[in-house]
């Protein structure tokens, strides 16, 4: 170095600089963006009546798959020590099929999932995919925008067969305003009754049916059985004239989320929106009748456990049902894991009763889906990932093995029972869970983030759940307030 002259130094510097420049140059990802015309559906009001009209818009065509390596970030909620390795394993098997696409999972705790997505969107750098995504998907849909990519062109381009996904799944995957497909069903959750076999046997009452098509298994029958199985501290059931309503020690039935189910069962619409016309509130008179029926059973007849008593009743147990003093409970697939801990009594699964309207049952079918952020630059690679996790080969693993939930594909439903049965410590009829799918209602209660709906609904709903007012007394006022909210919101459109 001491003997280096200026010329040598300049040569060395030039060589070093060129080398650094060459090293810094990365191969570019060539994205070919095309614009194509597409027919989209839009809801308009014509002379006071909502109508779906079609209009032609220009949208970005599905991007050409890049040949260079790409990284698809998938934001996942609630990864656990058990599920994270399974997610990674599925990602790895995908990478073996698509070596140029790497899936990077961003595991976020449940309660932070939506805020994290919001923050990333606000920062202008959302991930490519969100999967699985449940009700939170509706937070990012409104009449004037959606953060989700329209998947219809991709389905059409690749001729992707959606016939194996049920109606509820496809409705939930659609944008309710534009009717475009915005998600791929990947996981399903459904409801059923879990009942205490020992309590039924002790009372000498036949167990509830497992067949979902049992005509005479209805609300009246449920109430009849619940009355016999609700006991006070002296062992008198609810039909006994001297039944002590203040000292109930065993309940016949508990529905953890009666808010919309009972009104729906009577034939009503969701409390937040009328599914036929989203500019109107639901909460019709039929809904009110059903909701108040629940209240009467809970507080006047005292055969349904009131919601606020559940924590009290459960004490230190995982749930009221685990105490062994609850004959029947409205359960969901996400409760199944907790039942595996029950050792003190025998239990089984049964069909839910239908309401006064034959095809209405008191539970909702929830669908978690995989979606692509519209602002992502890797549409095609993301779409490959969506197809993979919803495919014939992988879908079952992505649902049943990963989350112990129902498979998204109808053809996989029969295999659900086979997979679940060996994991249950007791001999339970797991087919009841598998067969529940066609009977749940889509959770039309999910509104877009439009106003004060939840604040209003929670207040009035709690009046009924705490029996400070009947549904007849308070829901009409609630209906007016929510409608005012919708009117204010849609005044902008």
């Amino acid at each position, binding site marked *: 170095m001491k003997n280096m002259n200026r010329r040598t130094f300049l040569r060395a510097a030039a060589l070093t600089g060129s080398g650094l420049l060459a090293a810094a140059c990365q191969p570019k990802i060539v994205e070919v963006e095309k614009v194509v015309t597409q027919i989209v559906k839009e809801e308009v009001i014509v002379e006071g009546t909502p109508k779906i009209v079609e209009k032609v818009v220009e949208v970005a065509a599905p991007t050409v798959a890049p040949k260079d390596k790409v990284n698809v970030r998938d934001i996942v909620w609630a990864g656990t020590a058990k599920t994270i390795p399974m997610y990674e394993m599925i990602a790895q098997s995908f990478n073996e099929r698509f070596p140029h696409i790497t899936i990077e999972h961003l595991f976020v705790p449940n309660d932070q999932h939506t805020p994290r997505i919001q923050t990333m969107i606000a920062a202008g750098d959302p991930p490519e995919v969100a999967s699985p995504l449940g009700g939170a998907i509706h937070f990012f849909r409104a009449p004037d925008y959606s953060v989700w990519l329209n998947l219809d062109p991709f389905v059409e381009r690749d001729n992707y067969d959606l016939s194996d996904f049920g109606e509820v799944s496809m409705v939930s995957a659609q944008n309710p305003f534009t009717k475009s497909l915005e998600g791929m069903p990947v996981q399903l959750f459904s409801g059923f009754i879990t009942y205490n076999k020992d309590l039924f046997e002790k009372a000498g009452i036949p167990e509830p049916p497992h067949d979902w098509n049992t005509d005479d298994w209805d609300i009246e029958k449920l109430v009849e059985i619940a009355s016999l199985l609700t006991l006070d501290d002296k062992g008198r059931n609810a039909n006994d004239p001297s039944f002590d309503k203040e000292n109930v020690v065993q309940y016949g039935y508990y529905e953890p989320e009666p808010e919309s189910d009972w009104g729906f069962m009577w034939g009503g619409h969701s409390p937040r929106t009328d599914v036929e016309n989203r500019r109107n509130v639901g909460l019709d008179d039929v809904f009110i009748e059903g909701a108040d029926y629940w209240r009467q059973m809970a507080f006047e007849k005292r055969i349904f456990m009131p919601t606020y008593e559940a924590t*009290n009743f459960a004490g230190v147990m995982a749930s009221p049902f685990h105490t062994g003093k609850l004959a029947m409970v409205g359960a969901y697939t996400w409760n199944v894991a907790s039942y595996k801990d029950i050792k003190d009594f025998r239990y089984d699964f049964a069909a839910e009763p239908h309401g006064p309207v034959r095809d209405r049952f008191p539970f909702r079918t929830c669908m978690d889906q995989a979606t692509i952020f519209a602002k992502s630059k890797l549409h095609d690679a993301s779409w490959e990932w969506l197809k993979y996790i919803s495919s014939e080969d992988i879908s079952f693993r992505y649902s049943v093995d990963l989350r112990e939930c129902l498979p998204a594909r109808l053809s996989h439903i029969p295999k659900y029972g086979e997979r679940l049965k060996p994991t249950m410590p007791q001999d339970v009829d797991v087919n009841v869970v598998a067969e529940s799918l066609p009977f749940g209602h889509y959770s039309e209660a999910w509104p877009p983030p439009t106003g004060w709906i939840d*604040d209003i609904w929670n207040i009035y709903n709690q009046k009924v759940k705490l029996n400070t007012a009947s549904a007849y007394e308070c829901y009409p006022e609630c209906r007016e307030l929510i409608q005012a909210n919708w009117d*204010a919101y849609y005044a902008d459109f």
Partner: protein
Amino acid sequence: MATARQRSTAARREAWAFHLFISPWIIGFIVFTLFPVLASLALSFTKYNIAQPPVWIGLKNYRNAVTVDPTFFLALRVTWTYALASIPLQLVLGLIIALMLNADIPLVSVWRTLYYLPSVLSGVAVAVLWALIFHPSSGILNNLLAIFGIKGPLWLFSKQWALPALIIMSLWGVGGSMIIYLSALQGVPTTLYEAATIDGAGAWRRFWNVTLPMITPVLLFNLIMGIISTLQSFTSAFVMTQGGPEGATLFFGLKLYYTAFRDIRMGYASMMAWVLFIIILVLTMAVVKSSSAWVYYEGTLKR
């Protein structure tokens, strides 16, 4: 002797040094405080769902709050009731405990630590603890009342008792104001007490005419801090009641949080933040203005 030029150069150098050392704070203040505050003011006149750029809607958010949103005034009412009840209680209880701990009692430093400890515990942990205390059947409080033959209410599950429960819980943290009162009490000149005693003043008279006037500056401070923190209450309702039952504990801060982060309506939430700011500002200014009538600073003469 430095010439004028030398003095000017030195002054300039000193100014440079000042600006250089204070610049990190100034930059941080502008970027992380001033700009977001001004941005939220601008956003309060917009409809903003973070997925799309803000859309100017003028005073519509303010108008909707008054005319359409039934929970806006509910939240204000709940927060106001909470503040009206808990601020005086906190002031009085803090002072009483400070007076007790100002006495010459055995292990006084241990007692002071014990009374101060609750105020340093995390808000969420305290809320969870009190949720267990208020449990209708297994909670300590109702079990204690049962010993005296009293059937305790449903507390957090009762529309009538949920807010009183949170008010009771707010007294848990009086240790913070107690410490400040304590330091003020110890700053009261003993000569005043001696003079009052010589003049025949009893304990109550000494408290009313000597102690209280001498600690009014600290009372003013605790009152203003109490107004600011109480009107911004959030944690207890968020953890314990989520604003229920029936909106009985829907604090304004909680509704603001739900509007911004549950409903993703940043424009409306910004409006709420500014309404809260103006309310707190007006109240604080009113208290400060009134302080000339009841706050005594040592050395000042009131005519």
